[in-house]
């Protein structure tokens, strides 16, 4: 224990009865309370796998002195004969907020946002708080401690659940009669991190998940730089971060996606995080295994939904229903994969729910030893505190529970929970267990008596001649009282019994009949509740049926992913997008993911033949500007956020991916939003539905970044409070760019000189200056379009693409000269002031001036019918059909520098193809088959099958939930997912 804190506790706790031996005493004589206690005749789980039958546990000074079978109880020990009861180490929660209050968020929507840090002498971002040591405000919460003790917990590692870096945790034994000097086993136990901002600060940055990820990365760079003594000022946060480096790093990632990304961040900085998940790890178990991380998982399995109202139940998504069905398998699946995991109470409503969910997990196949490990040895190991807690080996804390039997048996009772040798009683363990079946003999008659329930709350059933009699039973302090009605239903009388019970196998005592006649009775036990009866019951409780996991694990997912095929399209109209133009009655052979041959009368053995007679085969559609498949869009906390990367927040399970495929889209550029002049880096995705985010990233693609101009970046439509961030005018926008480019140049110079602070943002902007990263800039008005080209020229590089570019037609000649492409909307306008002069002829005019033109969507709905949008270039301005089609295929491929791989039908290119039922730009066409690299990801026929699967799975799950409700299990009301479709200006957080 670190000394100043120890001193603090000594002062705080000087009034406590549990004073140290060297403390003076003025309120009585000095007594030595060092009792030795021995627990004999117990089944002892020293560890989950080291089990001693009929053993003895000896504890002294709150620690285990001895444990084993042939132990002679030391003299002067208090002996407790446990008569066959079971001892387990108490549980450990490694992710607790016990005794530490979370600061409340102080929200005032009318206040202007705060861009700078609110603290002095700390890191530039308030949400980085590694210096937090909860010890300073820790208050032992007796009430909460009792709840935890009752649930079986003996130790918690508690921390302040606030901020991105949250500081260290403290390891606390839940000793209700000790004081902090004994309870706190470690005052610096693990450092905690998360993606949640601190409630204590209003600082805007980061407003997004990718912003939080970028911030953490930059923080590590800065800490490294600081540790090397490069800073000329003190930063208490970085100092603490450096000091906490050797602690266990526990990261509350909160989702399976975040776990993957978080682990990758750790890899970059040589940190292996312990990951705190959300219970959905089973959906992507291989990726979880690949992190090599230990997990801390909640057991917050959802209740069944109340689907009795058929109208209401229609809004329930398959994804949510499946999670109800599958989530209890999470621990088993982690265990089967060999992933180390601990449980946490976090996210459970109560200790009771926690334990009943662990029972459920066991019913789903989780091994009991693994379950016990996840409650004891694993959390101890994760926290690197195995020498203190988690087992009952000699010298460990005397933290253990005494139970009536197998911990994971529903009937089992936790009698006592001992923490640091301090006894907490929850149920009288000396209580005779009366539960069982008896022959009850009174006055020559034999009644059948069955006693059930829990030892504290017994229930009785009295039957004679198959007639059930009303009865009431109580049992306290060893005295049984039972009264029941006489069999005569016309004239009810009562028979009363009372007896002192020492041994439930034979009970005898006094009986008073309804006539007032007093006599004796006896009852002989025929069976105990824990014998044959239970065996039968267990057999009836079958393993619950679990639906198979699909990828994604919801609508339109499949249990087996589609594979690359050799496919021959016969007799198609082929839109090559090459000098060959549109070829009639042509065959195209796809092999090994590539376009292998184009020609007439091709034959290929082993190829799957698709008859394309009367149909049109084109390259897949490419959407240069998309915001689907993302967990976040805008990092709006700074006016430049080049450090953020959309690749960090790809959501591969967004059903809009599937819908895009159904609209013939194979590639998208997932762009950052337009909240700031310099936005984040973008991700180019192949829409390989069912695959992981990383597998969707377009291979070997150049890097791009989003810039933005105009109303969005000057926050014109953000409300009256958003008037403080620079820039607020188009004039300011120019200066933001000039400033950052200038600084990046200076950064590069400094980098060359050797002594510099690694800055992710500056690194990214340097890439732009060196034409290693390319700009796609959200733009509307001609003045600003012109401005950005001039700024870029001044710094010696070119803007790659103007996206939206609705006034591109006014400066098409200048664009041509600069060499920038235009990725525009076909016909959007009038939604804000700066698009007053937007015209649908924009694409045609730019095209006619020789600008490379694409049509994009910026919209989950429009993106799935970009073929219709391409046709509008024919309507507005008379672009030829062949050229118009390139607006959504080859041209965006060129803008994204991937036209060597996709965008046209050419031998050797990637087989990213769409077969259309009609002319691809006809309003009457449909995508029939969409493939990426020779793998069919959408097909009308397969779609029909997937719809059927959804219907079947839904019907099955709804039936299962109705059964669950019928059994009297808890249900929750149906909820409806609110899907947010992102646009450029979609805010986050």
């Amino acid at each position, binding site marked *: 224990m670190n000394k100043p804190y120890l001193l603090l506790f000594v002062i705080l706790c000087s009034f406590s009865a549990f004073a140290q031996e060297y403390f003076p005493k003025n309120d009585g004589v000095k007594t030595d309370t060092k009792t030795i206690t021995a627990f004999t005749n117990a089944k002892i789980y020293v560890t989950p796998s080291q089990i001693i039958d009929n053993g003895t546990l000896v504890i002294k000074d709150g620690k285990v002195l001895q444990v084993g079978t042939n132990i002679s109880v030391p003299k002067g020990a208090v002996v407790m004969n446990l008569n066959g009861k079971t001892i387990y180490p108490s549980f450990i929660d490694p992710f607790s907020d016990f005794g530490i209050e979370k600061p409340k968020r102080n929200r005032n929507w009318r206040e202007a946002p705060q861009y700078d840090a609110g603290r002095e002498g700390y890191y530039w971002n308030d949400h980085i708080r590694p210096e937090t040591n909860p010890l300073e405000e820790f208050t032992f919460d007796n009430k909460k401690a009792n709840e935890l003790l009752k649930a079986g917990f003996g130790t918690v590692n508690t921390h302040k659940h606030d901020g991105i870096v949250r500081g260290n945790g403290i390891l606390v034994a839940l000793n209700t009669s000790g004081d902090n000097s004994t309870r706190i086993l470690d005052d610096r136990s693990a450092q905690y991190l998360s993606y949640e901002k601190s409630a204590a600060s209003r600082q805007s940055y980061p407003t997004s998940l990718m912003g939080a990820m970028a911030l953490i990365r930059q923080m590590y760079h800065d800490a490294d730089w600081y540790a090397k003594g490069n800073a000329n000022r003190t930063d208490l946060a970085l100092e603490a971060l450096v000091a906490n480096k050797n602690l266990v790093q526990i990261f509350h990632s909160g989702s399976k996606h975040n776990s993957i990304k978080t682990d990758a961040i750790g890899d970059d900085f040589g940190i292996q995080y312990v990951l705190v998940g959300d219970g959905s790890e089973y959906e992507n178990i291989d990726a979880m295994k690949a992190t090599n991380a230990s997990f801390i998982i909640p057991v917050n399995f959802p209740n069944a939904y109340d689907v009795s109202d058929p109208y*209401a139940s229609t809004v329930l998504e*398959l994804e949510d229903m499946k999670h109800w069905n599958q989530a209890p398998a999470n621990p088993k699946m982690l265990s089967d994969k060999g992933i180390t995991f601990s449980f946490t109470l976090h996210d459970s409503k109560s200790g009771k729910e926690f334990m009943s969910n662990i029972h459920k997990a066991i019913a789903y196949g989780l091994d009991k030893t693994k379950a016990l490990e996840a409650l004891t040895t694993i959390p101890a190991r994760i926290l690197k505190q195995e020498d203190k807690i988690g087992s009952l080996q000699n010298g460990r804390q005397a933290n253990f529970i005494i139970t009536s039997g197998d911990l994971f048996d529903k009937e089992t009772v936790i009698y006592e929970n001992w923490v640091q040798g301090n006894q907490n009683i929850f149920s009288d363990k000396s209580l005779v267990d009366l539960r069982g079946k008896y022959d009850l003999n009174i006055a020559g008659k034999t009644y059948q008596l069955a006693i059930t329930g829990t030892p504290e709350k017994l229930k009785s059933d009295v039957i004679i001649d198959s007639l059930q009699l009303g009865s009431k039973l109580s049992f306290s302090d060893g005295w049984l009282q039972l009264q029941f009605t006489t069999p005569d239903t016309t004239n009810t009388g009562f028979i009363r019994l009372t007896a002192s019970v020492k041994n439930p196998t034979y009970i005898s005592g006094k009986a008073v009949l309804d006539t007032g006649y007093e006599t004796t009775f006896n009852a002989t036990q025929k069976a105990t509740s824990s014998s044959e009866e239970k065996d039968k019951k267990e057999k009836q409780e079958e393993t619950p049926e679990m639906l198979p996991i699909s990828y994604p694990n919801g609508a339109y997912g499949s249990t087996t992913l589609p594979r690359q095929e050799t496919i021959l399209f016969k007799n198609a109209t082929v839109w090559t997008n090459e000098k060959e133009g549109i070829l009639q009655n042509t065959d195209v052979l796809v092999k090994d993911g590539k376009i292998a041959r184009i020609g007439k009368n091709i034959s290929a053995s082993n190829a799957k033949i698709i008859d394309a007679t009367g149909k049109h085969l084109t390259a897949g559609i490419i959407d240069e500007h998309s915001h689907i498949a993302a967990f976040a869009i805008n990092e709006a906390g700074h006016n430049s956020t080049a450090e953020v990367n959309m690749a960090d927040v790809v959501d591969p399970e967004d059903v809009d991916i599937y819908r895009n495929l159904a609209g013939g889209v194979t590639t998208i550029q997932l762009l950052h939003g337009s909240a700031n002049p310099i936005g984040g880096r973008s991700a180019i995705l192949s829409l390989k539905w069912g695959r992981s985010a990383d597998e969707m990233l377009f291979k070997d693609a150049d890097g791009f970044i989003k810039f933005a101009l105009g109303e969005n970046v000057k926050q014109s439509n953000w409300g009256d409070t958003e008037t403080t961030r620079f820039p607020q005018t188009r004039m300011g926008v120019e200066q933001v760019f000039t400033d950052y480019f200038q600084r990046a140049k200076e950064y590069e110079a400094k980098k060359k000189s050797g002594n510099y602070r690694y800055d992710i943002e500056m690194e990214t902007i340097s890439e732009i200056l060196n034409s290693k990263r390319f700009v796609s800039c959200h733009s509307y008005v001609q003045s600003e379009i012109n401005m950005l080209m001039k700024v870029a020229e001044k710094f010696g590089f070119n803007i790659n693409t103007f996206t939206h570019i609705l006034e591109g037609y006014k400066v098409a000649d200048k664009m041509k000269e600069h060499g920038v492409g235009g990725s525009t909307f076909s016909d959007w306008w009038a939604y*804000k*002031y700066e698009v007053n002069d937007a*015209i649908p*002829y924009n694409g045609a005019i730019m095209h006619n001036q020789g600008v490379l033109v694409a049509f994009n969507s910026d919209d989950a*709905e429009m993106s799935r019918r970009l073929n219709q949008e391409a046709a509008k270039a024919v309507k507005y301005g008379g672009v030829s059909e062949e050229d118009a089609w390139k607006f959504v295929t080859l041209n965006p491929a060129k803008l994204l520098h991937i036209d060597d791989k996709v965008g046209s039908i050419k031998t050797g290119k990637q087989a990213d193809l769409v077969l259309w039922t009609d002319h691809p730009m006809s*309003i009457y066409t449909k995508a029939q088959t969409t493939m990426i690299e020779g793998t069919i990801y959408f097909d009308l026929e397969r779609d029909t099958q997937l719809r059927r699967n959804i219907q079947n799975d839904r019907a099955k799950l709804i039936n299962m939930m109705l059964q669950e409700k019928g059994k009297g299990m808890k249900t929750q009301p149906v*909820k409806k997912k609110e899907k947010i479709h992102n646009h450029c200006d979609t805010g986050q957080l």
Partner: protein
Amino acid sequence: MKKYLFIYSICISLCISFTGLAQQTPAPKQAQAISIVGATAHIGNGTVIENATIVFENGKIVRIGSAASTRTDGKIIDAKGKHIYPGFIAPNSTLGLVEVDAVRATRDQDETGSFNPHIRSLIAYNTESKVVESCRPNGILIAQVTPRGGRVSGTSSIVQLDAWNWEDAALKADDGIHINWPNDYTKGRSWLGESRGLRPNENYSKQVQEIQKTFDEAAAYLNGDRSPKNLPFEAMSGLLKGTQSLFVHVESEKGILDAIDFGKKNKLKIVIVGGYNAHKVANELRLHKVPVLLHRTHSVPELDDEDYDLSYKKAKLLMDAGVLVGLENSGQMERMNTRNLPFLAGTVAAHGLNKEKALQLITSNTAQILGINDRLGTLEVGKDATLFVSEGDALDMRGNILTHAFINGREISLETHQTKLWQRYSKKYSEKQ
């Protein structure tokens, strides 16, 4: 700063009033008979006349038939190889009520308060709107102008899109009242610590009862001495007499069924607007002859589990079930998007509906639902000569290229603010070269 803001806003308003002059001058009354000859006439009721002749005079269609058997008159327009259609109708629109979505000063569609039957959209309809004129070159010649917001949003009117002022524009003033039926789902109040997402609306029944109570009170008022005057109740008199329709904006199955009951109970002419789940209660809609103005075809399904093409095919599902359906286009950027109405109908045809039936979704069906089918919606003798000629299939982007358009026989301009900019800048570049 304030001062500069003031100057800035003056600049903006000057800009607006200056560019506002771009609106096309409304066409004068039809002076002579016009005959369009040789086009394929899409009547709007499911039938087609190849090589047709259509003659109109004094704003009305006087003859239509095959060119061989139909006498021409007056000015002849040769439309060989072209197509002729009744003017498309955009119901439940906010055309002319908002100019620029993001500029508050231009937004006039949503009055404060929740019970506003007396609020009339017509008087705020801006005939000079640049957005309105941009609809015409795509064949949209008629619109229902509808207020938004509240429980009862107000009273809509039907206008034609080539007028000097709202009185000229009005085809049917105050045609109906719009009510937003309670949702059976409400958003979680995240600021109160509730989880986001939608959960069952516990107040649904109460809210439905409140509507009934209001209607009861209105009926009682209108049957009484109507004193002192109650403006909202007065505005409901047409509704309760059956001369106005009640447009019920409702999406859920239960909501639609409750709305049908409500209509029956109060003897109202009701129209379902939006009707996201209408296809699930198609049978009841057919039985009670309740028509649907169906939500935007071009929208993504609300639920992940739903068919990707649900919005595309829904109109067909309803029509197949015998329900009278028209298409509406409310939603994000609805005004500028109105010009894509023909392609909303075309998309339904792509997903299984016969093309001429798809055309009905934006012509005769809508006219019937809005109660203007005596004058509009089809190319039939006696009806208004509100029609247009297109180079090709007007439901397809590549064919929807108008050469002529008429409202009441008046040949309207197909120029817009946008075509002018197109011409100006095309000229700039051609002169440069």
